[in-house]
């Protein structure tokens, strides 16, 4: 069996109309193609876009106050039985993810950055997801209580990475309003720019639900429907 990426048309954009005009003569299409190719070769690329997915991320976790020492406390499928098939976002839970943006070459300007993911279920009425930059290193053994446990245990300033400006950015990068389940796209240009320029160390984001009784279910990167579903699309160009 060969491995193939699952289809996702979120990132696809249709080519502009008129790029390939209908040929009036058998040779006209070929001539247009040749002309375009020569023009492209002569014109330097102005912008480049990369798409990073959860497959690129070494650091991911789902933490919960209910199971404070678990790093993947995604979904309690039965009493005291947890699985990673979905991410159940509710108060006192958080999804942490860090994309490695070091693939962007030096000397670039971030034109646009968008984070895309899919929600599959949500509570009644409109729901809100808060996206915040994480402050400070986190790593092996991350959970509700600790930002890391190896080589030594380091606690969050406030459990659940809730320390304002010490564990997470003071204000949300975005508050995503969700009326129904489906694909979500979040403009994160400012955050990626901060990370790329080094103004702020890249420690990734945390996604939380902070409304009482709020509930949103997200695709899990550890289950096929969610694998490579978490996309960070970054367009950059030379400064």
């Amino acid at each position: 069996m060969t491995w193939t990426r699952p289809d996702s048309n979120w990132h696809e954009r249709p080519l502009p109309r008129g790029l390939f005009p209908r040929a009036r003569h058998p040779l006209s299409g070929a001539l247009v193609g040749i002309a375009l190719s020569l023009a492209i070769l002569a014109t330097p690329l102005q912008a480049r876009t990369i798409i990073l997915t959860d497959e690129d991320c070494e650091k991911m976790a789902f933490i919960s106050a209910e199971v404070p020492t678990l790093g993947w406390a995604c979904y309690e499928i039965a009493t005291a039985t947890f699985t990673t098939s979905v991410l159940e976002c509710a108060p006192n839970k958080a999804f942490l993810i860090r994309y490695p943006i070091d693939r962007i070459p030096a000397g670039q300007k971030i034109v646009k950055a968008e984070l895309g993911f899919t929600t599959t279920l949500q509570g009644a009425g409109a729901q809100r997801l808060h996206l915040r930059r994480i402050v400070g290193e986190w790593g092996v053994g991350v959970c509700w209580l600790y930002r890391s446990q190896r080589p030594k245990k380091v606690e969050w300033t406030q459990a659940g990475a809730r320390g304002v400006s010490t564990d997470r950015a003071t204000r949300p990068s975005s508050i995503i309003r969700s009326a129904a389940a489906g694909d979500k796209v979040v403009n994160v240009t400012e955050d990626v720019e901060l990370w790329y320029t080094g103004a702020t160390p890249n420690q990734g984001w945390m996604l939380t639900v902070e409304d009482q009784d709020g509930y949103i279910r997200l695709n899990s990167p550890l289950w096929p429907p969610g694998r490579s579903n978490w996309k960070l699309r970054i367009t950059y160009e030379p400064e």
Partner: protein
Amino acid sequence: MVRIAMAAFSASLATAFLAPAADIAPRFTNVEPPKAEYLVHVLAPQARCLAVSDTLGWIAAGHKAAHPAQITLYKLDPQGKPTGAPIAIKTPVPAYLTPRNHYVLGLLFHPRLPLLYVWQDVEASKADPPPPEDPAWKEFDHLLIYNLAATVPELVFATARGKGFCIGVGAGGPAFDADASRLYVPNLRFGDKVLDGSGIGIYHLEPDGLPMLGEAPAADKPPASPVDAQKAAADRPARVAALRAALAANKPIGAFWYTPINYGFYAIPSGAGIHPLGPKLFIAQGTIGIVTWDEGSRRVRTHVLLMPTNMQAYYVTRLVGHPVLPVIFSTAAGYEFLYRVEHIDGQPTLAPQVARLPKYTVNAPPIVLTRRKLVGVGGPGVFMLVAFDANGKLKEEGALTLDVPGQEVDGYAYSEKLDRLYLAVEKLPK
């Protein structure tokens, strides 16, 4: 208009799907056998599993159903090479079960005593419809314990029969905890006529290597001191007689404990890789992922880590734990992935690392070549080795393939003492 079109087209061209970074693509170098001086071929046709004893100097192969004998044993010379004539063992099976073939799923040597533990199974009934009560439940014993100190390997004890153990499973094997005081067994069965679920069982053992009688010792009680082989052998007849009497009286032996029916082990196989970490704390192969079982935790008794796989068909994992590092290596049988999962006291942390292999992986779990910092797994006609660093993190460089043409490489084992990789082969290479 043409310039706008050109810009748009070039921007579209410039969209790149970069190769994932957390997923790695190790660069494999093929090694010819003479250059892999640590490699030893073991003539064991139709091998399903292999086990080596560093202390006893034995290697054992468990065979698939088609092979006339279920086990082949070789003595090893001081350099770790098989020596002398192979010893073929036909394991016991009730005569009324023929023509159903029986076979060995897993082998395990006691770390100190001359004992070999065998987990065997028998083909499922081919009757249509299958009988509501499988005749194999009556008298087919899955767990066999052989004494290798005898002139001819001698079956000293057999147990694990009944509808509490699955029949006709394709994978799963026994495992010891660190001091061989607990024997973990796979493929338990729940349900009456229909399989409701599977699980992992634990036999508590005495220092003589046989199941204990009575209650299990307290979890915090230190293990009993080892006994020497001579005393164990001298006491064995009385011990075995007592165990058989207990079984005849329908009393439990080994203070047998098992995981209750649960999501992590809801289908078979269960236990194609078991990594004990403490009393009733272990990581084991579950139906669709890595299961951490912590009986001592009220809040998280079971955790199932699903493997990041682009699933084209339903997949079943296989796993091995590094004996020292807090790392599990896992495969999804039939897929070309090798996973590395770090854990904190058994609970997985951060994203699994995924390595792409050149061929799909077979039924057997991976093995760890500790002294070489390699993790190996069999494939079709090849054995694949991926290097890891001091933290058990898989690396792109240093990966190797060893050709074993004409067969799926299912039987393999590693001797840490001798630094030998053993591969079971259908024919010895010239």
